């Protein structure tokens, strides 16, 4: 079919509106870079847990505070971020998020000079706080950048760059940090001054990618700040204020209530699995530091590919049936990881990512089904379930410290079993008419 310009004739002959308004194309591309940037930062953080453990010679529990700082900031800033965007608009929200995240990246500089772990946690908290605001603003911004009918397509396109960034983040860690760290064996023969020098050198390796991320964020900030753009109004979704009965209705809705719990454990499982993949490879199987990063990379690629496969399968099977099967598959993989402390266990750890790939959107959709206008407020609860990513990795790490590195995978196994329980609940329970908004 021939096309003219940027519009495509529809079957009825009326021109289809462009995916992104012509005047917002450059801002849209800049926002796509934002999606990639927070994907890179999030998954680079997964690598940091093991890196800090090595540099500061600390326990798994202590090093897991990295994820507590990161996901804790996301949780803590979720509501303020919505307020900023609602009160000051998309551009202010995006600029605030970009600026704060860039500051967080730059804070790695003094932290690496002072050689104090807590300063790195602070830098990570600030970085993640900025990214939380950025994400909260950028998602509705993208939706508002064109015709309402193509909003989902536009958001999907932008979000497709998030896993691209995630893979870049892991690649940066695997190439720039892991192979160049001072080995633990080498540290056994270093004197006190040499140990400090090795810490400085290793923290310098950590600094480089974060300064790079800060530079990219700053560049995007400048490009957005000094670009005049016709801003769409803040969407009704953001302006929506829950009526007095909304929270009560949501609480009474078991599919929603249990859905929030399931999402909490899904995010927890995902964060645990990816955070400790590298440590499992090193501590249980004995993979070298430089080799271990590739198993996390493989997990993310599998996650990405599985998403497409699951999207196809969701068109064939009932979503919660598929959710149940994949959650049980994830539980089985975790069990293999706990019991089989060799390469088979590591392959099982990587395979868990296939089961994770459909969970967030599936739980999201099932929990909000039939909520009507309450869905706008209910969605916030589901997003705040990210708290699971802040808390459960500490439990996983504590189990590793006390019962062994492989045993830690019992934690995501239990999380995924609870997700399976939610799927069973949905499959075996008819929705109460009162749970479905008129």
């Amino acid at each position, binding site marked *: 079919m021939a096309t003219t310009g940027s519009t495509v004739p529809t079957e009825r002959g009326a021109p289809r509106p462009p995916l992104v308004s012509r005047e917002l194309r450059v801002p849209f591309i800049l926002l796509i870079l934002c999606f990639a940037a927070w994907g890179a930062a999030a998954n680079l953080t997964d690598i940091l847990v093991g890196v800090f453990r090595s540099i500061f010679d600390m326990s798994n529990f202590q090093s897991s505070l990295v994820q507590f700082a990161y996901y804790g900031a996301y949780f803590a800033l979720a509501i303020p971020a919505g307020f900023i965007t609602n009160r000051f608009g998309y551009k202010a929200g995006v600029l605030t998020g970009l600026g704060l995240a860039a500051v967080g990246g730059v804070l790695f500089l003094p932290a690496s000079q002072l050689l104090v772990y807590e300063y790195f946690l602070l830098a990570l908290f600030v970085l993640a706080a900025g990214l939380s605001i950025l994400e909260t603003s950028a998602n509705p911004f993208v939706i508002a950048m064109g015709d309402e009918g193509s909003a989902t397509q536009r958001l999907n396109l932008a979000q497709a760059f998030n896993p691209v960034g995630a893979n870049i983040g892991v690649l940066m860690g695997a*190439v720039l940090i892991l192979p160049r760290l001072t080995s633990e064996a080498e540290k056994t023969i270093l004197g006190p001054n040499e140990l400090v020098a090795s810490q400085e050198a290793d923290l310098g390796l950590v600094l480089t990618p974060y300064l790079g991320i800060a530079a990219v964020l700053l560049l995007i900030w400048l490009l957005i700040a000094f670009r005049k753009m016709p801003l769409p109004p803040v969407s009704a979704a953001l302006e929506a204020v829950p009526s007095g009965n909304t929270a009560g209705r949501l609480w009474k809705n078991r599919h929603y209530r249990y859905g929030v719990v399931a999402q909490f454990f899904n995010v927890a499982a995902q964060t645990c699995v990816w955070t400790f993949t590298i440590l499992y490879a090193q*501590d249980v199987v004995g993979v070298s530091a430089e080799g271990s990063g590739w198993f996390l990379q493989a997990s993310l690629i599998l996650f990405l590919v599985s998403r497409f496969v699951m999207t196809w399968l969701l068109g064939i099977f009932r979503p919660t049936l598929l959710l149940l099967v994949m959650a049980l598959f994830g539980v089985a993989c975790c069990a293999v990881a706990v019991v089989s402390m060799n390469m088979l266990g590591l392959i099982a750890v990587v395979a868990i990512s296939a089961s994770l790939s459909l969970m967030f959107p599936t739980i999201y959709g099932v929990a909000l089904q039939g909520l009507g206008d309450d869905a706008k407020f209910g969605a916030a609860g589901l997003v705040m379930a990210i708290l699971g990513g802040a808390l459960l990795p500490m439990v996983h790490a504590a189990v590793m410290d006390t019962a062994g590195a492989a045993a830690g995978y019992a934690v995501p196994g239990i999380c995924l079993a609870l997700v399976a329980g939610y799927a069973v609940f949905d499959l075996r329970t008819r929705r109460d008419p009162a749970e479905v908004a008129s």
Partner: protein
Amino acid sequence: MIRAARPAVYGAAAALALTLTACTSSESQDPVVVGLITKQEENPYWVTMREVAQDTADDEGVELLTATGTSDVDVDSQVTALEEMVADGADGVLIAPTDSTALLPAIQSAQEAGVLVIAVDTPVDPEDAVDAFFATDNLVAGELVGRYAAAKAAELGLEPRVAVLDLAPGIASGELRREGFFAGFGLEQDDPRLVGALDTQGDREEGQAAMEQLLAQDPGVNVVYAVNEPAAFGALDALEAADIDLADVVVVTVDGGCEAIKDGVRPGSIDATSQQYPENMAREGVRAIADAVREGEQPSGFLDTGVQLITGAPAPDVDSRGVAYGVRNCWG
């Protein structure tokens, strides 16, 4: 250490990094040629040493020549390799001597040709026949497991009945480990707690035979010291064959290879091992020769390449590292 399969992109990135390193190195630093002569090809201990030497050589912009014997007693191959490396212009050679005296004439010839010679892992006799010696302090390695065994036995409430599985007469590493174990445990040669000491050649089957013999002397053996991990596995074979509950026996050894850490220390059948680091011998050796050529810093004397006590069941007042640390840093 297990090396994971690496995707092509990593190879490309590494190649790029190496190319850049090589470019900068060749422009700014003198060319240095380092030789590494190990004892044999198959043993993972030597494989690890060679891999780390190559990685370090790449990082340092140094050309590495490697050669190996056919066994732990193959002197002729090492003599030939040393002569060839001197002829090929090596600035320095790292050698793990298969014989402490038979290689001395070849080493002396190399030194007279201006080549720096550093013994790694195994000493020559006399030790100052080489420019420097980089190795595990075997006395400390033995002492660590000795202290652990004594503390663990006390914690378990055992009245120690000690079996010692030695290496062979006249081999310095074995004698130092044994001396260290006795010192760490607080054991005397005529100590009534000592059931007996037998040679094993560091071999699993001979270790099993020796342990069976000692159990025949005293079925109540509850502390076992083995000079290396194959001998320790032999002792475990004998203990299991005798239906002795391993929970009531403290088994300690020295080396830190991956098989022993994963299949012995992790399940708890071996209570503790002193882990040594061949990678440190290789890395420090290559760096020392590069520094000697470029900056005139001549290496000399003994460099302790480090040792850590690895256990899944720490004993009171004895510093140790966990199994995960042992797996991360094991060789083989």
